[in-house]
């Protein structure tokens, strides 16, 4: 035997028979941290993939984080092109060096929008934390009503409204720029202003879809763990889009 793993006696005695229990219905994850990996759930005694709701939540979270890593690369690519384009010029017929970049003035409403988006992240985090509030989770798990949905849904709805408000604010900014005759095709810097705000808005539309799904799930889904996953993943996505926006906004405001 290779020296990596020598099974001990208790290991060998462990029953390997699959009891056809996929872990569903076990105690849902809560915000109560008792320390240790298993937290009293006999986590290690069950194989991966069958450890119950907390594992399922972790799986979805991890998938979302990989997706967000790809998304981050997308924005990194766009931002790299931003810096390349800002510093690129050419020589004209008279051998003069021309850099066509004229910074696009940021409509002041974007500051307000940023504040709204940050606020929406706060409400979303409140919604997310409600989903794991231990007394409520245990109450639901024991079958005593649906306090989780009742307490979380208003915050999700608030986030949804703030998100729509942010998008409306973005639309207002685009309209203000259009009134100043700054369009997508006007200047290299305006290409990037619109490209960045549009792609971010598309991501927020997906996030709004996620929020609506979460809101629907809070009412329709019977399984607490499914609702937790919906809200949790929507929240992490929403926070990431908030963080992305802060960086993109600072880029547009101060680095043109």
């Amino acid at each position, binding site marked *: 035997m*290779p*020296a990596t793993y020598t099974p001990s006696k208790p290991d060998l005695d462990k029953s390997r028979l*699959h009891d056809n229990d996929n872990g569903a219905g076990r105690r849902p994850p809560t915000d109560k941290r008792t320390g240790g990996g298993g937290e009293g759930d006999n986590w290690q005694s069950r194989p991966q993939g069958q450890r119950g709701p907390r594992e399922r939540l972790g799986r979805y979270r991890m998938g979302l984080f990989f997706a967000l890593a790809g*998304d981050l690369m997308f924005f990194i*690519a766009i931002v790299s*092109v931003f810096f390349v*384009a800002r510093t*690129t010029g*050419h020589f004209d017929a008279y051998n003069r060096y021309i850099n066509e970049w004229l910074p696009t003035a940021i409509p002041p409403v974007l500051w307000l929008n940023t504040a709204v988006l940050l606020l929406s992240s706060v409400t979303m985090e409140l919604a997310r934390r409600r989903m794991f509030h231990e007394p409520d989770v245990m109450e639901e798990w024991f079958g005593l009503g649906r306090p989780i949905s009742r307490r979380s849904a208003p915050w999700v709805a608030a986030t949804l409204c703030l998100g729509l408000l942010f998008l409306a604010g973005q639309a207002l900014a685009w309209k203000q720029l259009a009134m100043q005759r700054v369009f997508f095709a006007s200047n290299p810097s305006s290409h990037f202003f619109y490209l960045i705000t549009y*792609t971010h808005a598309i991501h927020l539309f997906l996030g709004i879809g996620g929020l609506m799904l979460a809101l629907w799930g809070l009412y329709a889904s019977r399984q607490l763990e499914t609702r937790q996953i919906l809200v949790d993943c929507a929240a992490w996505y929403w926070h990431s889009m908030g963080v992305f926006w802060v960086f993109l906004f600072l880029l547009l405001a101060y680095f043109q």
Partner: protein
Amino acid sequence: MSQSPYLRRESAGTLASSVRLAGRTSPIRCHLFTTDHRAIGRLYLWLALLSVAIGTILSLLMRLHLTWPERVLPFHGPVLPEDYLALVTIHGTLMLFFVLTTAPQSGFGNLILPSQIGARRMAFPLINAVSFWVIAAALVVLLSSTFVPGGSPISGWTAYPPLSAVPSAGPGQGTGIDLWLASIALFAIGSTMSSINQLVTVVRMRCEGMTWGRLPLTVWAWITASMLSILAFSVLLAALLLLFCDRHLATSFYLPVGDVVNGTLRAAGSHNGSPLLWLHLFWFFGHPEVYIAILPGMGLTSMILGNFSRRRVFAYRTMITTTLLIGFLGILVWGHHMFVAGLNPFAGTAFSISTIAIAIPAAAKVLSWLATIWRSRPSYTTAFLFSLGFVSLFITGGLSGPILAQPILDQYLHNTFFVVAHFHLIMAMAGIFGLFSATYYWFPLLANRTLHEGLGRIHFVGSLLGAYATFLPMHLTGLAGEPRHYAQLTSIPNAAGDLLARTLPLNRGITWAAFFLAGTQLVFLANLLLTLWRGPRSSPNPWDATTLEWHPNLSESDFGLLPVVYREPSQYAYQNGEARALPQWIDPALLPSAPSTSGDRGVS
């Protein structure tokens, strides 16, 4: 295998099991619109088989036109230069994306990966199905570009601007390339979803005892390729978006000032861009893409060489490291595609160094393959032969890599057939040999039958000879100066024409060899169909393999025993000169006696 107390006469992954998993509904529901990873894996393989058939026919048409340009195609008429370039584009796009990316990474990744780590399903079955259908839609969109006005795009699978950004650049650069953009964007989204799924599956769904050090090298290759996919395809998506803006929204990210296309100076809009920007973004994706195509083949080669020579894979931990290192270095070398495109020479030096650095992990892989089979007495099955062929092609194609990695040599060679020879040997042929190896090796899991070994050997010998006869002489015509992407080599009335005319005899030979190579694949198709029709049923573990996908009752594990892993793959006990396989799932307590573990020394 006879030691296993859990032997059942049913192999994992049979059609029957997928039917059972998908629920007892109509066959269309079971095999087409299913979330069962094995059925999805089979769908990917069918998609890749269709793509490879089309791609091969296109390549033969290209060869025909190069050698006999005056020949008229039936139902088509004379082959115009733009037709030739459309053939180049669709051939490259099909082969790179829809064959060499889907088949090893998503096809076998779905069929084999979950069982190899002891998982019963992928982490997100529904997303898995969606990503297949997105990729299938991408294929339909790509192929539909042939039927729009202007036909298919003519700017190659790399779609360099300004040719790709300006509709007036040629036929096919209008609607054709818009469809190409849509197709590749869909493909990028589908591949990213499928890679996320694979990564989470490996991180979160491994069975008991399947530690990271015990993962088969195929799994390491799959997750390395998945990580590359997530990083690279996102950047490609951004690049495609910018190209779309250049085409339709009057931007000029890639369009330089004073750009003359077809004799017309383009003056509209601000022109501050550079085609180099596309090259940077595209090759930041494109080079990792090459490794996405070849890494699964590398992992499989290690496992198959070990399995059939009854040896531990030499320096197992080092092979894991080199897999990751090749993936990591693969992100840092994109500039070597741009040496002659106007890249800063200092950047060229940096990219040259990082490119030559890849020779270190690649050479370590080759040494491990050779050391694994060195003085063993392997059983020369078809899967083993194709793995040997993979090693051979990897070495032959790899040796021209450090040559092309030097900017000064690349200056002369870059736009010649030398590069075509290089990447066809190391990526296309080695990749395809890896795929064939996988097909012969895993066919019992795919269809519960074994492919015919005699026909397989004929297929192997023909393919190896055909591959070398086709692509080795291309080095010579390239050195003689034959350029890439030229639709015509004859009737050019100057010194260059004389030079090209001198390569024609060799080119004719290449064309005959290409037809021979393609004809040999008919043996494989015949073998496939004959075996599916009335091939012999395979035993549960016909190759006496040690990895978990051959666990005798994996398909029954809904109610049976969960697999537990006790050791690394490719472990053997040697008694009286006989090597006895110690599969990963055999409990050491159930082994008859303490085996001699002379094969286990090293880095475990």
